[in-house]
């Protein structure tokens, strides 16, 4: 038989449960936002150890070297 009757306890704790739910959603949103920010910041980093990735660093133009 499905549980259809709402116990008094459910009403009493609704506000508290809603608050906890919203806090968890906010935490998940912060972690997601942080992940996006970190990935953007670390675009030129090697993923495995977060070291500067020399292979994708744009070459520094040096006029004296190529005679220009």
């Amino acid at each position, binding site marked *: 038989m499905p549980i259809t009757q709402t116990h008094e306890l459910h009403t*009493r704790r609704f506000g*508290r449960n809603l608050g906890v739910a919203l806090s968890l959603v906010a935490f998940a949103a912060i972690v997601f*936002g*942080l992940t996006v*920010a970190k990935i953007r910041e670390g675009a030129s980093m090697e993923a495995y150890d977060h070291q500067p990735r020399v292979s994708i660093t744009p070459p520094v133009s040096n006029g004296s070297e190529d005679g220009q």
Partner: protein
Amino acid sequence: MTDATTNATTGTPEAQFGDYVQLLKPRVMSLVVFTALVGLLVAPGGVSPMIGLAAILFIALGAGASGALNMWYDADIDRIMKRTRGRPVPSGRVDAGEALSIGIALSVMSVAMLGLATNWVAAGLLAFTIFFYAVIYTMWLKRLTPQNIVIGGAAGAFPPVIGWAAVTGSVSVEALLMFGLIFMWTPPHFWALALFMKADYHEAKVPMLTVTHGRTETRRQIWIYSLLLAPVALGLGLTPVAGPVYLAAAVVLNAIFLIRAFAVWRRDEATAEADGFAAEKRLFRFSLSYLFLHFGALLADAALRLTGVMGV
């Protein structure tokens, strides 16, 4: 009391979400957020807005966690004092064990998340701040020494240093002077309050300076700390994080603070009681603006530097 807030089985008041928020001392948290934000914004380098926002949130959460641990441990004296009687634990709305669990869980979470979001120097400083406030201050020295306010002030002085470390990964003289500003400001601020809230601390048997060394000595200590506060505040004005706005504000605010602290020092009890502790209340109220305006001036100078106005 309605059924919505009372546990039907035990008859005791049942905690609502707001009670758990109260457990984190949101008023203290607002000062933490503001000073940490200033520390973060004036630090050289800068971080992305999302990382900055997360850092401030986790510093605030860490402060809230130490507040919950404080409420768990201090429930016995909170029950006695009029000002703290209505807090979630002494009023019975939140179980003491629950406050302890929340305090520990949020401490671990805030430190770990701050470390992941920024760096482990900032996280280490946050962990030390929580330990310092919950263990050194609350559990050990608060009930032992009348210098409790000075020691507790150190915990409140860490947030701008953590904000600074979140950006730079280190601690420098500017951060230490921001620490010193809050540290030196705390004793005159709270002792001014203790002078007109004497009955509460006395009944709770907390060794407040007013009780252990007398009110005349408290007035003298307010004056001494105010004298020590001024050079720290002005010294911060000579560092690269400050500019003309801060320096002008510091000169004016410290002059007013010293005048008001001097007035409190020179008064006797009969005069103070006759006018309902007007000078003490004036110093206490001004001390709130004092700290807010100092940190606000640092922000204003940072904004001026950013926009290049006035050549700073």
